[in-house]
């Protein structure tokens, strides 16, 4: 009889333990099921990257995931970014979203993450490796082409144009320029009078534009291929009182640019959709974690906004994504 009681106690204890274990295990599952995605961008500053970040956070909220955001202190500090990526790999995050500072330098780290089974999504610009799950980019070539078409339109399909690009080495800059040139070539009456690189320095852009305008007084329009270049060019045209006679085709939509649009100095601008990029990067990172098939390359459309239609409700929302 005593043996029976012993046996009974043993059985009871076993059941109780199993029960407790099952309870705690349930909790564990709830905690660990929340995915942690590391978002490492080129920089925290500026309209473009800020909006990408915002889009990523919007997606994180919708899909119920955690985002671990970092970026190098200095936009061009490639080594710092490599460090951040390596740290994220060591932390064994569930996925990695990268806005790279350099086309080649990060390839090695990215390949390491890929080897360890961490999905890598690259946003905004490409990298020199195929070992990424997806690239989400503005179709810069297309954007350039659109800019070319609009430019030709503005000047009535004939005249001289100047180009101020922001970087010789940057892949996006190259693509934009290639797109632009290919569009301009369709219009035999449109000639490229000058081409300069401002290296993302507004002062430089301003000076280059001034120089270009004084050297080529017959220029009908200048196209600037990023926001810094656009602001510089607009400032130069404004100060030289060439409003109306020299049209400006801009990229992106900073407040400065919008002011210049209000003033009528900038005629049209190509607006990218960085929010969309950020949002989709998180969405596709999740899909990759779940081993769903996704496209290797996803292009986000850019849009042309003219001075006349900038206050239409749908364009307002594109031009002023931040609520102040």
């Amino acid at each position: 009889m005593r043996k029976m009681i012993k046996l009974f106690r043993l059985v009871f204890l076993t059941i109780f333990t199993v029960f407790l274990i099952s309870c705690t295990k349930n909790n564990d599952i709830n905690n660990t099921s929340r995915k942690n995605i590391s978002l490492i961008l080129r920089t925290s500053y500026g309209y473009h990257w800020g909006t990408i970040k915002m889009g990523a956070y919007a997606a994180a909220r919708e899909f119920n995931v955690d985002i671990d955001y970092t970026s190098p202190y200095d936009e061009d500090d490639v080594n710092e970014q490599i460090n951040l990526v390596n740290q994220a790999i060591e932390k064994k995050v569930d996925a990695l979203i990268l806005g790279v500072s350099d086309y080649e330098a990060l390839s090695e780290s990215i390949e390491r993450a890929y080897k360890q089974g961490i999905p890598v999504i690259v946003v905004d610009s490409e990298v020199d490796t195929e070992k990424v799950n997806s690239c989400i980019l503005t179709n810069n070539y297309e954007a350039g082409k659109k800019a070319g078409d609009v430019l030709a339109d503005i000047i009535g399909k004939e005249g001289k144009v100047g180009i101020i690009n922001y970087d010789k080495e940057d892949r996006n800059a190259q693509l934009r320029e290639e797109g632009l040139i290919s569009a301009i070539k369709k219009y035999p009456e449109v000639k490229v009078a000058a081409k300069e690189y401002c290296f993302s320095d507004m002062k430089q852009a301003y000076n280059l534009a001034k120089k270009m305008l004084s050297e080529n007084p017959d220029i009908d329009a200048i196209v600037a291929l990023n926001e810094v270049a656009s602001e510089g060019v607009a400032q130069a045209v404004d100060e030289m009182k060439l409003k109306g006679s020299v049209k400006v085709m801009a990229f992106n939509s900073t407040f400065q640019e919008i002011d210049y649009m209000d003033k009528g100095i900038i005629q049209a601008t190509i607006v990218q959709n960085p929010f969309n990029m950020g949002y989709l990067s998180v969405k596709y990172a999740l899909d990759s974690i779940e081993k769903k098939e996704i496209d290797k390359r996803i292009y986000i459309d850019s849009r042309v906004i003219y001075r006349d239609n900038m206050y239409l409700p749908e364009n307002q929302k594109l031009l002023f994504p931040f609520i102040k």
Partner: protein
Amino acid sequence: MSQRLFKYLKNSFMGIINSFRIKSIQFIITVSFMFITTLAMVFVGTTIYNRISNLAEQNAFINTRQIIDQVNLNLDYYLRSMLETSNYLDNIIYYNESIPNEKLTEQMNVVLNSRKDIVTLAVFSSEGELVAGVPPFKVKNTVDITEQDWFKVPLQEPANLFFSSPHVQNLFEGQHNWVVSLSRQVTFNKDGKKVKGVLLVDMNFNVIDQLCQKVSLGKRGYIYIIDSKGNIVYHPQQQLINIGLKRENIEEVLEHVFGRYIDNFGGEERLVTIQTVNYSRWRIVGIAYMDEIVGIKKDIGNYVLWISALGMLIVISISAFISAKISKPIKQLEKSMKLVEEGQFDINIDVKGEAEVAQLSKTFNLMVTRIRQLMKQIVHEQEAKRISEINALQAQINPHFLYNTLDSIVWMAEHEKSEDVITMVTALAKLFRISISRGKNIITVREELEHAKNYLVIQKKRYKNKFEFEIEAQGEVLDLKTPKLILQPIIENAIYHGIEYMVDKGFIKVSVSIADGKLLYQVMDNGLGMEPEVLNNLLINEPKSKKGSGVGVKNVHERIQLYFGREYGLQIESELEEGTNVKIWLPIVRDENPEGLLHEKNDKAV
């Protein structure tokens, strides 16, 4: 109906049990418990699950509703304060002597500074000209105010207030704020005349945005706001909607002013809760994802399942324990009964277990004890009966022998052989004295030998000295105890079968000694001897001839064995033409209370 169901259940249940062909109590109890528990657990589990999950669902609904009501309250407060501001300004403007003047601008500035959420206050004439405004922004010359809704509508409908959707205010140079505009018709004095105009109050949209952004319904749920035409006023994922990555089912929402429904949009079930804000006719739409609510239900379901399983395990182990506890003493009882069946009666069960089983064991013990007693009694009765028969037989010796002896004495008297008559009668007298010996069955060896001697004396006379005899005894054996009249039948047998038909003179020797720790009588003759088969039958079958005393050798043998056990008794060696030697083994009994005393007492009792 329920009876039929019960019968069906019972039948199927019994069917299952029968199919197992195990009908042990333990099995039946365990299975019954299991069956009942499972039924109970399933019933209780589903009831609890339904109740709790309903409650959880209701709670989720109520929570959503409360959150949305809260948002509504805040928005209401916010819009009302705007309205009050505009009322106040309307009043000031109406009673102002001439506009524009410094006083009005100052008063407007006070209002603007007291409210951080007001971006712009401005009064426009009916031609669209800025009459007064704070802060003093420059109106863009590119904008045609008269074409804008907030300006047109109040002039057309003077009684109504106009709430715009959130938009970027593009009236002033260098200003691109997201605002909600409230506009109304006002009347003011200009050049001594009352003229119509429009008052514009721009509120920072940021306030609404922050008000709504903090709200979350569950993990992924959110709220959004649409105006009466279905334009989205606020949406946490405004940008996604702008670029068409996300859509809301606005058509269906527009059909409701208040309430909630569940829709299936974008492949997901969502709980949509709608509330309409006063003044602006905006609608607050709360979206909660059903899978989160259902997730709670699932959690509850899992929990109930676990509890049920645990309860079932516990009940099953308890039932196994109880049934084992009940059936174990029964099994023990069964084992004991089997032993009894095999003939072991010296069994006593430990009385344990439940009252019924204890009672059963007790009764069983009583029964076995009674059987044991009865068996003993039967054995004793049988033995006693045997002994009494023997005693009776013993008594029979006397008349038969007596006639023959008396015949011989008569014959001797007729032939005047008085010496012989004296010898015979003396011997006969001694013989009977010992034979009767006051009813005692146990006598001394001395007396037994005396009895044998007298018998031999009488027989020798009767057979006309056809044989000689000798009695030999060691002195130490004479006082030992012995059953009486055991030598006489042996001697009788020796005479009738050994000596009587002999040609030569016979010889009988009777001796007593102690051998191998036993008392040994030996009766030896030199007579004809016996054939082996006769010898073998001698101790097993009754002799067929009734010659002699009638008390056979076998009787003596049985008597000794009855008294003293199987290791004692007769042992006969015989050889044809050589003679026979009968050995009688007896225990050595010295005092008056030998083993045989019990038998003696029983003899007396019978």
